[in-house]
């Protein structure tokens, strides 16, 4: 992460306190630094200053026009500012009284009451009269704009935060002001119904509304803000790993709403629809209350005693190769680690895997062959801050990793980052892309290897970098000669000119052929895609191509560069790191290397050696079960019966098992085949850690009491082990984390304390945000692995000092005429919707998400992309309030 140097600093006095801030800072933010709060409505961190509400007035005695709005007045040397003088208070009081002229003041029935900025400002500015003009107030009824957003317009103070966040931070541009003057109100952009608009129901507008005008349909009128206990945790859906705050009503012990929080994590205040509305399943009526045991062919309610006794009696019979375990990509690291230990040591089997996305297990070949690990190389913030060109490959990130795509579009629009989108169909982000490569579905490998070949042919290769860090170049170049621009164009369906343009833009970081930096390299470019893309036959060739493209142009191990396959599930990365793959031990170490096995045997204090032959992956496991070679299975938080590409195969396999144990929150289709179903806690009911798709280890905190008799998955495993004759190993998830920190090299030094400390400042860029250094520091919580005892904050950029195996190894993919895999590679298994995650075990039990999906809200399917508003207004990039480019000041 960079720190901008050589910034002019300005010293001024605010209420008698001296403060030094970078030039270009606004008075309001400078005041905040010395602890002086100034009331405001329209000012919002990370938005351009707006100057609409006039509540933030201060007196600047060193200037001629002494009263000014502090949110848009830049500081100057020697400035003297007073924020609480009589003149200021009078002016502020007038502004608030003016807002109250048409305000209903129905606080008792207003959701915002207790956290309403208008209430606060009225109190602060000593307002004593309501409606001094005594004219009738305007009144609006509640209006439901969509399944997620309601509005009560007479409470609106027209600060425009909602309109601006939706445009600048989400990129949906779904809201706008309608009419002028007194008649002015907030409505869908272009007069559109919000349901048909690009609104992605992220809830950000609701969250930033300073008053009770925009309302959350599922929270509306169900709780009071001051009765809510706030618990910080991590989202349980996708790999972005958003920090969030669960608001739990103490009296009922229920989650009432979820919000993001400024300054908490990568996502700041942003969440996506899943994060914002995806909690109703926790209180779902069909949550499992007690263990179920199969009796006379029926699953009946039972007790923990009976269920555990049955498991302890039956499982030991299947020790060895007839046993398989499926871990959960939504489970915590601690649970997956313990599960891995259970399957490998206790059950003596290497048949362990997890659903890495779209019902597929972990793939062996891919990025790991090139770099030594298949983890994404660069942290999200690093990409937003430092990348100059982004290549998005074949993934609708707006549905798979929504908040990443929202933040990326902000960075792209503000900083003029070049964007290349390669996808078979138009994506929401296509509208702001510089180059759209619309290739024939399935031709990703041809495209990427082709682009890399073009880079090599056009001599854009970073010779020195490649010489130092890359092996197998000559062989690769030889193979690359088989690629001709025409051949690539024929295979992918992308015109030659566009291919060459894209190759140049990527290789030169968007700077053009003469844009070399002093280091001899071009500005950094990065490649981003959802890891689900490569989970199919031949998927490794895509990754070889991506890696070749990045290595040849010197784009690995640098800030703002890298190859970033984003894991789909929220802890897909963690499950892999914990060794839930048939051929990997914890820490992504190959099972076949005896030394790794030995070190693990030592760490775990085993007397018998670990089984040395790699086990079967998810698909093969189910095949083996179908053929009767695997006779017992233990499935934790996974749903292969639904996720598998061919449900017939999966159900036959599961039905064919002699003994199946399933741990889940619900009676999933998989659980229907089980002999024992154990009720597990939801993410809100347990402690632990998740590792997000950017390798960030973050802490999950228990917010609710356990539902029914359910207990956390790791506790279930501890109980099972206890019944099977092992002593009680762990009494808290922290103990497991401590063991992980000592056993898994990448997680060295991680403990609860380092993860819980308040965020650390990772970037300082005063004077470098949009004429407004409101966010002059971004805080980061958690830690990016690899961490060590000495550096528990971790490593945002991998391979900065070389690759694990010394050098990266290029792997050539020969050109094959006319061999793109064509349509239908996903075999109909992927249903990419913003409102669902995986098989929908959780999301399909959230009524708001279900209705958003069923009513075809934006991004609910590739056909119902977004863009409606944007397409109608092709010049939106230049329109009045849309984000322009970042300027230096």
């Amino acid at each position, binding site marked *: 992460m960079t720190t901008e140097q050589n910034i002019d600093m300005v010293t001024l006095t605010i209420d008698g306190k001296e403060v030094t801030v970078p030039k270009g800072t606004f008075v309001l933010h400078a005041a905040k630094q010395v602890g002086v709060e100034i009331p405001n409505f329209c000012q919002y961190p990370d938005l351009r200053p707006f100057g609409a509400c006039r509540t933030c007035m201060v007196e600047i005695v060193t200037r001629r026009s002494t009263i000014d709005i502090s949110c848009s007045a830049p500081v100057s040397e020697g400035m003297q500012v007073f924020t609480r003088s009589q003149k200021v208070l009078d002016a502020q009081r007038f502004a608030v009284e003016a807002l109250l002229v048409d305000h209903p003041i*129905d606080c*008792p*029935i207003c959701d915002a*009451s207790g956290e309403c900025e208008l209430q606060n400002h009225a109190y602060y500015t000593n307002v004593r009269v309501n409606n001094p003009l005594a004219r009738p107030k305007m009144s609006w009824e509640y209006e439901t704009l969509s399944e997620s957003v309601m509005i009560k317009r007479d409470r609106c103070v027209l600060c425009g935060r909602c309109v601006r966040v939706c445009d600048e931070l989400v990129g949906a541009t779904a809201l706008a002001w309608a009419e002028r003057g007194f008649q002015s109100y907030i409505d869908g952009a272009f007069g559109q119904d919000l349901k048909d608009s690009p609104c992605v129901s992220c809830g950000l507008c609701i969250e930033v509304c300073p008053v009770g005008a925009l309302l959350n349909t599922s929270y509306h*009128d*169900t709780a*009071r803000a*001051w*009765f809510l206990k706030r618990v910080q945790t991590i989202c349980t859906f996708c790999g972005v790993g958003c920090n969030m705050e669960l608001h739990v009503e103490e*009296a009922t012990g229920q989650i009432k709403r979820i919000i993001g929080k400024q300054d908490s994590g990568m996502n700041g205040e942003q969440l996506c629809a899943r994060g914002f509305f995806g909690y109703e399943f926790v209180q779902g009526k069909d949550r499992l209350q007690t263990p179920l045991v199969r009796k006379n062919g029926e699953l009946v309610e039972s007790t923990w005693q009976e269920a555990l006794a049955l498991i302890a009696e039956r499982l030991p019979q299947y020790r060895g190769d007839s046993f398989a375990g499926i871990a959960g990509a939504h489970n915590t690291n601690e649970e997956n680690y313990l599960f891995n230990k259970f399957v490998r040591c206790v059950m003596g089997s290497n048949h362990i895997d997890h659903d890495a996305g779209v019902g597929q297990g972990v793939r062996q070949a891919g990025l790991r062959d090139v770099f030594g690990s298949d983890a994404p190389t660069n942290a999200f913030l690093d990409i937003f801050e430092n990348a100059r060109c982004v290549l998005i490959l074949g993934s609708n990130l707006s549905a798979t990793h929504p908040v990443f795509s929202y933040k990326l579009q902000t960075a792209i629009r503000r900083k003029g980052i070049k964007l290349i989108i390669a996808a078979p169909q138009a994506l929401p982000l296509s509208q702001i892309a510089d180059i759209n490569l619309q290739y024939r579905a399935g031709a990703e490998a041809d495209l990427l290897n082709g682009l890399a070949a073009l880079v090599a042919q056009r001599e854009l290769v970073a010779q020195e970098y490649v010489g130092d860090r890359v092996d197998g170049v000559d062989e690769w170049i030889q193979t690359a000669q088989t690629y001709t621009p025409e051949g690539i164009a024929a295979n992918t369906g992308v015109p030659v000119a566009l291919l060459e343009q894209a190759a140049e833009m990527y290789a030169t970081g968007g700077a053009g052929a003469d844009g070399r930096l002093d280091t001899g390299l071009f500005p950094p470019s990065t490649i981003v895609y959802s890891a689900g893309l490569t989970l199919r036959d031949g998927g490794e060739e895509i990754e070889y191509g991506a890696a070749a493209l990045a290595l040849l142009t010197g784009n690995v191990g640098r800030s703002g560069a890298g190859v970033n396959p984003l894991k789909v599930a929220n802890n897909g990365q963690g499950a892999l790191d914990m060794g839930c793959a048939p051929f990997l031990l914890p820490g992504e170490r190959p099972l076949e290397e005896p030394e790794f096995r030995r070190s693990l045997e030592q760490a775990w204090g085993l007397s018998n050696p670990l089984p040395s032959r790699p086990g079967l992956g998810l698909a093969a496991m189910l095949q083996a079960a179908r053929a009767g070679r695997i006779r017992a299975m233990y499935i934790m938080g996974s749903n292969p019966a639904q996720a598998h590409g061919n449900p017939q195969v999966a159900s036959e396999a599961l039905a064919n098992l002699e003994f199946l144990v399933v741990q889940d929150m619900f009676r999933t289709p998989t659980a229907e085949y089980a002999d024992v179903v154990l009720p597990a806690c939801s993410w809100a009911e347990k402690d632990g850690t998740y590792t997000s798709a950017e390798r960030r280890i973050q802490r999950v905190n228990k917010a609710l009491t356990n539902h029914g008799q359910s207990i956390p998955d790791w506790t279930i495993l501890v109980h099972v082990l206890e019944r099977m004759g092992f002593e009680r190993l762990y009494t808290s998830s922290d103990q497991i984390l401590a063991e992980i920190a000592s056993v898994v090299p990448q997680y060295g030094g991680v403990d609860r304390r380092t993860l819980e400390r308040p965020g650390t400042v990772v970037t300082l860029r005063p004077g470098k945000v949009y004429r407004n250094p409101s966010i002059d520091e971004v805080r980061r919580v958690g830690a990016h692995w690899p961490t060590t005892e000495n550096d528990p904050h971790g490593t945002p950029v991998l391979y900065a000092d070389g690759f694990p195996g010394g050098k990266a190894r290029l792997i050539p993919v020969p050109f094959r005429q006319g061999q793109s895999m064509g349509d239908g590679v996903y075999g109909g298994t992927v249903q990419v919707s913003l409102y669902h995650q995986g098989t929908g075990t959780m999301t399909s039990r959230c009524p708001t998400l279900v209705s958003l999906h069923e009513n075809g809200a934006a991004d609910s399917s590739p056909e119902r992309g977004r863009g409606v508003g944007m397409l109608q207004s092709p010049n939106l990039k230049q329109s009045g309030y849309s984000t322009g480019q970042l300027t230096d000041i």
Partner: protein
Amino acid sequence: MSLIDRFRGFYVTLGEGFKSPTTVQYPKEHRDMGHRFRGLPVLVTDVSTGEEKCTACGLCATACPNNVISMTSEPHATKGRHPVTYTIQAPRCLFCGLCVESCPVKAIQMSHVFELATTDRNNLLYDKEKLLELGRGIYDEIEQTESGAWLEVTRFPEEAVTR
């Protein structure tokens, strides 16, 4: 002299002796409580709609120093909000009346109910239905004071009868 003194000693007794007694034969008889007597807080029904007035704003629960009041709410067509459940844990109540003072819609009132003794402590948990039942007959009325100002006053059932 001394005889007069003797009768003087009985002066009060004789004076009171022929009036009807002030003592009531509680519990056979009940006396009317003073207007401002603070008995159990109860919920008041809106006579025009027949529904509880409460909008579940939670202010009473916040004002209560003893955490006596709890509620859950849902949206409501006319009032905006509406309590689904509303509970008063009478044993903890200290009859301070802060809830009544905090209520913006006069939905809660200190009733004249004070006989809370019971053999089962669960009976001391007053839910919404019980509280509404106890609040039956309490209503607000506008009254002109002697100085001519209009004042909203609360009427209790027994006051309505005596009037």
